[in-house]
């Protein structure tokens, strides 16, 4: 039972990180209809910036640079590539982001060379003991930070002008444009926010507690698990992204313990497959209706 509680808390902590990534996917999808395959690259850019600046500037400043850099990179992808081909359909733009991901990720790996740096999170590898339960502090911090950011996001999404503009555009682009909502501003901020969320997530992923390995191809592979998280919850549902992220975190933690570490990587995708067969648009996604 203690193991189980331990796993659930740690799984939820990982889940909070996946939720941040999945939220980024969903925000981009809602604003531009594009599935961003380059999300893993944004994670890597953030991580790389932290890794090279943490020695000189210390962790807080380096993290700020990483978050800003990841956001900026996302903004650049949107401004330079996605917004230029506004008339191309979203599916070809998704393929375009695959191209971006190949180039950017490979460039980061080339820069890293043989080094596998950690990002120097001060809370990493300091397990917390509550009675006979051992918890990873990274996962605890991730849970808290995740809850704060997700709450802030939902408040902004619900009440701020940006959130209203964003939801209006997702609902009906033509009407939103007629109401004076500037499409380019909405899409640009959506990518910026998604990039920054990825920049936050990487600080937790590249720790001994979470992935057990420094910034590397594994980081990119882990970021990919945010895909099942977003799809599971439904690509156009922000609440779904959070639920999906938590499900992915829990499935990962529980299957790694009770089946095998190898199986955990598959389990996440199997869970997604099961949900998709039962509900093709995810748990909270809008059902597609075909009009003839």
């Amino acid at each position, binding site marked *: 039972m203690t193991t189980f509680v331990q796993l659930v808390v740690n799984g939820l902590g990982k889940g909070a990180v996946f939720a941040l990534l999945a939220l980024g996917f969903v925000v981009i999808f809602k604003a531009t*209809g594009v*599935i961003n395959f380059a999300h893993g690259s944004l994670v890597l850019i953030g991580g790389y910036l932290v890794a090279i600046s943490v020695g000189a500037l210390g962790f807080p400043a380096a993290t700020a640079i990483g978050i800003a850099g990841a956001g900026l990179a996302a903004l650049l992808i949107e401004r330079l*590539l996605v917004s*230029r*081909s*506004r*008339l*191309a*359909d*979203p*599916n*070809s*733009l*998704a*393929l*375009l982001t*695959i*191209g*971006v*991901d*190949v*180039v950017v990720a*490979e*460039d980061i*790996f*080339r820069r890293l*060379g*043989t080094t596998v740096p950690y990002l120097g999170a001060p809370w990493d590898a300091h397990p917390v003991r509550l009675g006979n339960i051992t918890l990873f502090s990274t996962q605890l911090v991730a849970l808290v930070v995740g809850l704060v950011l997700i709450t802030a996001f939902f408040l902004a999404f619900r009440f701020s002008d940006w959130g209203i503009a964003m939801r209006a555009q997702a609902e009906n*682009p033509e009407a939103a444009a007629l109401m004076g909502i500037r499409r380019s501003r909405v899409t640009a901020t959506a990518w910026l926010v998604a990039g920054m969320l990825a920049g936050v997530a990487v600080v937790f992923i590249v720790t001994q507690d979470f992935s057990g390995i420094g910034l590397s*191809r*594994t980081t*990119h*592979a882990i970021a*990919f698990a945010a*895909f*099942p998280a977003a*799809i599971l919850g439904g*690509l156009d549902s922000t609440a779904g992204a959070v639920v999906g992220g938590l499900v992915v975190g829990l499935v990962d933690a529980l299957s790694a313990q009770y089946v095998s570490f*190898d*199986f955990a*990587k*598959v389990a*996440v*995708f*199997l869970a*997604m*497959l099961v949900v*998709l*067969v039962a509900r*093709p*648009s995810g748990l909270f996604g809008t059902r*597609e209706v*075909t009009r*003839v």
Partner: protein
Amino acid sequence: MSETALATPEFSAAGRPAGRLRRRNWPAIIAWAVVLLILVLLPLYLPPGLLSAGQYVMVGAVGAIGLTLVFGQAGQLSLAHAFFLLVGGTAYSVLAGETTQAGAERIVGFGWPPLLALIGAVVITALFGLAFAPVAGRLKGIYLGIASLALVYIGFYLGRALPALTGGASSGRNPEPFSLFGFPFTNEGDIALFGVPLRQPERLWYLFLVVLVIGYLLAAGAMRGRVGRAWRAVRDHEAAAAAMGVNVLRAKAVAFAVSAAYAGLAGVLLVLWYGLLKPDESEFGNYGLNTSIAFLAMVLIGGLGSIPGAVAGALIVWGSQQILTLFAADLGLGTALSGFSPTVISLYVYGLAVIAVVLFEPGGLAAIGRNTVAALRGRRRSDMDSSGASGRRSAPPGKDGK
């Protein structure tokens, strides 16, 4: 996702049969004959490195043809190609191999004749593709692509979990060398062509070439026939296709099975090329997501739905990596671990090529080729112009795919 956006309208049945029946397209036939002749003569002149690179490209081309059928023609995005490659390679190794004891592990083999094992491997992979059909039938577009991604992870797990079949991730297993009615595709025996001895590399080249040509012709036939028309109808509008009497679920299932069969065949060729079947030790190995994406890049660069395009895409994506590796020293490139290695450069090349294709020429190399031919013939009509870029732009934004 309706693939209207990436459609290649000139493959519609109109126009082609008339030209095919009335007057033979002699320039094209002669061009193909010349290309084939060159491919037959090349192994007599090429050094071993380039020979091996050429074989690798042919393996890629076989796989890419399968992907261009399911994605370009039937409009079903599949990221599972790497999984089917693994299934094909494993099935061949198990069917053709002998049961051996490697340490504590008993490696299973049936000892079939290699040709039978190859056919068996293709059939088994096709069945795996068919087994995915219930999922494919329910999903569309990117959802389908990501669902198919699950197969790659399942393959990654099974490859490691079933060492009796795959030989395990640490050592792998050696596939039985191919032989045809007693003729071995190895260094055994002495045969020569124009005084050049045909040894394993040359023999494998001809084997791969024959497989590629057969695969190419079958795909072209499927595309021109009833199956291909059904695929394109499903791609362009599922509801309309159903109304026209196309069995949508069956068309999708067939597309997945055929594409998987091609990938399985490529998987068999791949283990013959490596001389080794080795499941991945990490998520980014030979049968990982990156391989699926490499195949996707091939068909995108070549032009979705175009079979010659798929072959050209394989040449760019897999060929560039091999050729850069061969000439790395001459070009002053780094080794695998330092800086701009050949692999890194080839990834830049095809990553950027994918971006360029989506931004500037959604029809890929196939559209560029068609436009060039049309311009050379001096009958570049307005409808030829619209085949690539503007064809997709005719769809109102936001209306397509949703």
